[in-house]
Every structure is written in structure tokens, then in C-alpha cells.
């Protein structure tokens, strides 16, 4: 069964498709956000300047807040705690590493009984993959440098000096779709395998009770076949609205 998964693959594919639309000049001189010289940032980040990293960190912390960002998230780590900024920086700099940090290795991590972490050893790209990722990443890097600057501009000069409410208002405006891209990447950094640089301490998975990769241990027959017992959920807030939307669309 592919269905449920394929839907989202298509959506990410349309984001990835942006790489196709890039004018060729951009590829030749893929502008690094680091062009905006920032000495303090060197060494800590592959791609970001210290300022860019700070904007990304503060913006993703509004998109996926943790306890420091929203008091109602006490006990629930968010993008900041999961180190989503590190994930994004690693992705944007993936091709400067050897092997490129695009596809983690396998078959196992060391989280479910294997002594070593095979996933930490990334797999080299095929020429087709290298071609695609070069364009994809060049597109994203361009969007990040333009998008971060536009967040600053929309916040009256400095996004990180704006209040939480101002930041939210800027993000909700989603100028040129940059916030959609940032949110999509923040999601990846939050809930993907930690070898990619995010999901630090597995906080993303823990918050949603997802065990993550489980090989080579797997699940017992009982864990597969039995109910985990009652776990009642009363839909409220966005969930209630979501259910309403589903009911309406079902009625057509």
C-alpha cells in the first residue's frame, strides 16, 4: 500500500520541483548565504551566517514551538530543542561533505540493539542524484538567503528583535512561500532520523510517542496484534476544525 505515503511525497515533490525552474545562471554561481560575510558564524555552520542561523532558529521555534517559546508547550520540546537549524544547515551544505549528507546509511542505527550506528555512514550519490541535488540545493539556498532577508525586512529590520506576536504575524504572511519551505524543512528536522542533524535526543519522536527505527529488534507479535488499551481523545481546537473539514469534504 503506497497511497497514504504517496500523497505527501507528491507534495514534497512539488517543493523539490522548484529546482527545475531555476535559471541556469543561478546554478553556475550558486550564491552561498555566506557571501554576506559573517566571521563569527564560520566554523559553527556549514552554510549559514550566525545571523541567518539565528533567524532560522527563531522562526522555526515559532513554527514548531517548545517550552521556551510557548508556555503551553511545557514538557514538549520543539524545533529549538530538536536542533532543526542544524538539520537545515546540514541539508543546505550536504554536497560540501564527502560522502554527501543526503542519504543516511543502513541497515541499522544503534538505537534498537545494534552495537554501531550504520546510518551515520552516508551513501554516495549516483550521477543522477548528484545532478538533481545540486539543483535542488542551489534553489533552496537562494530561497533561504532571500527569504531570511525578507523576514528581517517584514519585521522592521530585525526578525530576532521582534516580539513573538510580531514574528507570528510576519510568518503568517508567508511572503513568496518561503515560510512554507521553512516549515516543510522544520518538519523534516523535527521528525527524521537524527543522523541528518535534527531530532536531537529523539525529542521529536518522543513527543508524539513514535519509537522511530526499531531494527534489528522489531516488534513482538503481541505488540503487533494487540490493542494498547483505551486512549481517549476529545477533539478540540484545530483538531476539531480538521474533523469538520473532513466531514464537509466527505459530504460532497
Amino acid at each position, binding site marked *: 500500500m503506497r497511497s497514504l505515503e504517496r500523497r505527501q511525497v507528491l507534495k514534497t515533490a512539488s517543493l523539490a520541483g522548484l529546482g527545475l525552474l531555476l535559471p541556469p545562471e543561478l546554478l553556475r554561481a550558486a550564491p552561498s548565504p555566506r557571501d554576506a560575510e559573517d566571521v563569527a558564524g564560520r566554523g559553527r555552520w556549514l552554510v549559514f551566517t550566525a545571523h541567518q542561523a539565528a533567524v532560522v532558529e527563531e522562526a522555526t521555534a515559532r513554527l514548531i514551538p517548545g517550552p521556551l517559546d510557548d508556555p503551553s508547550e511545557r514538557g514538549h520540546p520543539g524545533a529549538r530543542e530538536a536542533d532543526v537549524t542544524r538539520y537545515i544547515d546540514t541539508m543546505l551544505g550536504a554536497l560540501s561533505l564527502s560522502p554527501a549528507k543526503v542519504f543516511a546509511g543502513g*541497515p541499522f542505527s544503534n538505537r534498537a540493539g545494534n552495537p554501531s550506528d550504520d546510518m551515520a555512514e552516508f551513501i554516495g550519490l549516483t550521477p543522477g542524484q548528484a545532478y538533481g541535488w545540486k539543483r535542488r540545493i542551489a534553489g533552496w539556498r537562494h530561497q533561504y538567503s532571500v527569504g531570511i532577508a525578507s523576514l528581517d525586512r517584514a519585521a522592521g529590520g530585525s526578525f530576532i528583535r521582534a516580539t513573538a506576536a510580531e514574528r507570528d504575524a510576519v510568518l503568517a504572511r508567508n511572503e513568496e512561500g518561503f515560510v512554507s519551505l521553512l516549515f516543510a524543512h522544520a518538519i523534516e528536522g523535527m521528525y527524521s532520523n537524527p543522523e541528518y542533524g535534527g531530532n536531537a535526543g529523539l525529542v521529536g519522536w518522543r513527543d508524539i510517542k513514535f519509537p522511530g527505527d526499531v531494527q534489528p529488534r522489531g516488534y513482538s507479535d503481541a505488540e503487533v496484534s494487540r490493542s494498547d488499551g483505551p486512549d481517549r481523545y476529545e477533539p478540540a481546537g484545530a483538531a476539531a476544525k480538521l474533523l469538520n473539514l473532513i466531514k464537509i469534504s466527505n459530504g460532497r
Partner: protein
Amino acid sequence: MVLAEGGHDVTILEKGRNYFSELVSARPGTVFSNDELKSDRNFAEADPIAEPRVFRTSPSDAHPFVGSVQALPQTVGGGAVHWDAKTPRYWDIDFKKLSLLGPITGAAIEDWPFSYDEIAPAYSEIETLIGVQGDVAALPELTLSHAPRSGSFPMPPGPAQYSSLVVAKGCERIGLHPFPAAMAINSRAYDGRPVCNNCGFCSDYGCPIVARIGALAPLRRALLAGAELSDRSWVVSIEWSGRRATGVSVMDESGRRHSLSADLVVVGANPIETVRLALLSRLPDPHGATGRHLMFHWFTDGSGIFFDERLHAYRGRDHTHDIDDFADPDFPGARKAANAAGLPYFRAGKVEMGGSDRPLGEAQEYQQILSYVEPHKPFGTAFKQLMRASLLRDRLLGLVLMGEDLPYPTNLVDLDPVHRDFRGLPVPRVTYSPGRYELAAQAFYMPWLTKMLDAAGAQVSIAVPQQSSSRFPISAGNVPQTDHMMGGMRMGTDPATSVTDATGRHHQLDNVFIADGSVFPSSGGHNPTLTIMATALHNARQWL
């Protein structure tokens, strides 16, 4: 396998890389893993920027889609590396559709060159080779009457998935006939490979412990018989003159080409790439039949949401139970509904029951949904609350109905006149849309999906077509991703209406054979791969 064991000197050319070590051992090593991001990033498939495909619903489609269209893994092992290996048999009426069910206006309904009874021994042989679990005693009478079996499955079913059990019980309550799905996954150690440990990263993932061997089993037999495997070897054309192929032109990963001579060429690149290769090679096609009658299966999703418990469908083999009541043209009410739509009959097909989504997929759904339900702040705590409640993953029970596609001459693959891949070769262009048959069957069975979920106890049930159509123009991005591809080089006795003969041999070239789903004259209503393998085996035995 058949050719190598028959004493031929065989070279297997695979475009993609080999992500396995020790293919001749019982249990190869692999780098496939439980990693959702790796799968999202198309680790095993062609990169959609480097090697896009074009999709359009008709020649007048003003907005063709360019990108990932029915992309299957491009690697040693092919799509059978990434499948969850559900291996039902086709039914007798699939092989004799014209004789047993009759014609449908607008579609090229034909019988296959062989019957169910004739291919049954090849089914059994493949089931033993790749190791299929299942329970004959639990199969419904209807299934056994259309696909009779002589013995038991090589392995008993593994543990049932809780989500599948919940909906199976619901199905029984409303008179449907659920059963443990046949699947080529080890429920015990088999042929030197370990039992599946239900890791849950099954469909769309290579099995990290190789408890699901798939196409690597016949490949291993071929290698043991002396065949050579050459990965990173992209066949860019078949060279031919008169009625014979003389060899192939192969491009390596660096883009360099070389020729390889051959007495016999067998193509199994999957319909879209097989047709593309035939067209790139300008294989003789006097009747313009190459690429036509493409079939995909017309998928419909059902989703049930449960407030009282979490169904943990992330544990297990994607799903473990099926029904195939809807593959029956005489399902109660179906003939009447078909007649009302101006059709003599219609069929849908099998329903896979109990799967769900994974965290990245779920989170991306909420990202989209929040822009509708919380437009002033479509992010933040609301997003995290949705993730924790997990209505669309841990509390979701998914159904997938695969509907039979009819063979229409207008559904086809050809070469796109504009787009080229990163090596400069024209990319395949797919032109495909459903006909009245598919849409009428979908309209009839869609309410059944919600009925099944209601009976299972879901608080909210919904059924949605996976692809957009004239009836459901969902959005431009909804191109088919059913992974089931059939037709394009169909078998038949008449060279005017088919491309290959009764054994898959090219009508115009005596030593070119096609060995994938492209030879199927009809699509059936079940997953195709067991039938692809059995057809290849049945045919190959006649080439020697």
C-alpha cells in the same frame, strides 16, 4: 533464471546501483533502513529533477505535470525491493475477460493467450521461490472459486496487525469476507533468511534484514547458474536489423556508451521504461501499437479516525488483511449500477486494509490543513497538538481499493517531444485518464469504504479518490502513483492489435522478448507482481 539455468550465457544489465552485498548468499547484506526521510528523498528511485517523466490526462491537457510519475526503484532488485510484497493471484476471469465477461465499448478487451489453469503451476513455483505466507483455509469461497489452489502456502500467516483485525471484524459484520493477505514475507526462517520482525517500515522501504527477498531470489538462482550482473548499466537502445536484434547499446554511469552483442534480448524494465526503450530503439511498429493500452489500477483511499484508542499501524507489514469481494462483477448491486451507467458490468478489485501514514507524511498533511483551518496562524502549538493527537496517523486506519483499469488505446506511453533527462535522452510521456468503467465502479464502491470503516468503529470515515478525474478534479498534483503498471507491449496473436506474441516475443523481431507487466492484455483487480513473475516464468520456458 530460466535462461541461465538452461545453459545460456546471460548478462543482466541494470541501470541502477546494487545496494546489496553477497547476492549469491542466502542472506544478502543491504544498506536499506528504517528511514522515512531517505525514502522521501527518493533514495532508490530516479531523481525527479534528473530524470523526470511527463504526465497528461489527454493530448489536449494544457498543464502537463513534469516530475515523479509512477517512479519505481531503480536499483538491483527493482520495485520488488520496496514493496510490501502482497502477492495475490489474478482470477480466471482476468485471463479470459473477453470470453467470460464480454466486450466493453471503447476498450480493447481481449483474452490472454493462456488461462488461469495453464499459469497455475508457474504461480506455485514462484510462491515457493520467493516464499509466500498465507492461509488457504481462510480464503473466501469466492476467491478460491476464481483462483483455485492445489496446495497450502509455503508459510503460514505471520502475526495479524491490530488495525487490520479491527477492520476485518467490521467487514464480517456487514457481510464482507476478510482474510489474511498472501505476501512474500517470511513468517518463519525460510530458505536461509530470517523471520520478519514487523519493523513497520515495509511498503516503500527496502527490508533491512531481507525477510522479504522478492526478485532477488530468482536473481540469485541466475547468478549461481553463471549469469553475470552488471549494475550501473543503462540500456539506451536495442540494435537490430531485419527481423533480429544484434545486441544493445549500454551507457555506464559516467555517460560513456559501449555495445554488447547478443543472440537474444529480454527486456524487463517495467512498462514505462520498456516502451521508452522500444521507442528510442525505433523497434519496428507497423501498426502503431507500441505503448498503447497502458493500465495503472484506479486507486481509492478510505480513512477511518478513532478517538478511543491508538491503532499503532506503524508496527507490522503495512497491513495484513484484504478483501476481494469488490473484484466480483456479481457483487450485490454491481450489475445494476453498471447497467445504469450504460455498461454491461464493472469490477473494482482488492481492498488492502489497515495501513497508515508515518510522522513526516502526517506532519506535512497538517501543514497543508492548517492553512485552511487556522489561516491567521497556520503553525505553532496547534500543529504540535495535532501531531500529539495523531488523528491522521496513530488513530488512523487506512484502506486502499485498487480498481481494475480497462485497456484503452488512448492511454499510452510515448516519448516527450520537449523534455530530456540529464543525459539528454527524451523522457517518457504518459497520457492516461479513467473511462466510464473506472469512474462508475469507483462511484459505486466508494461508499462501501466508509461503510467498512463505520462498521469497524471509526468515529469519522472518509473515502477519497487518490487521483483527480473529471469527477474529482482534486488538484493538478494528483498524478497516479499507484506503482502498478501494466500494458504497452501487450501479448496477443494478432500483430495489428498487439506488440508481442503469445509468449511475449516481439511480433517483428524474432529474438526480442518482453518479460514484465507491459505484456498484460488486462490489468486484473489485484496487485500485479506475482502475475508478472509467473507470466515471465511461464513464457520463458517456451523460449528455449
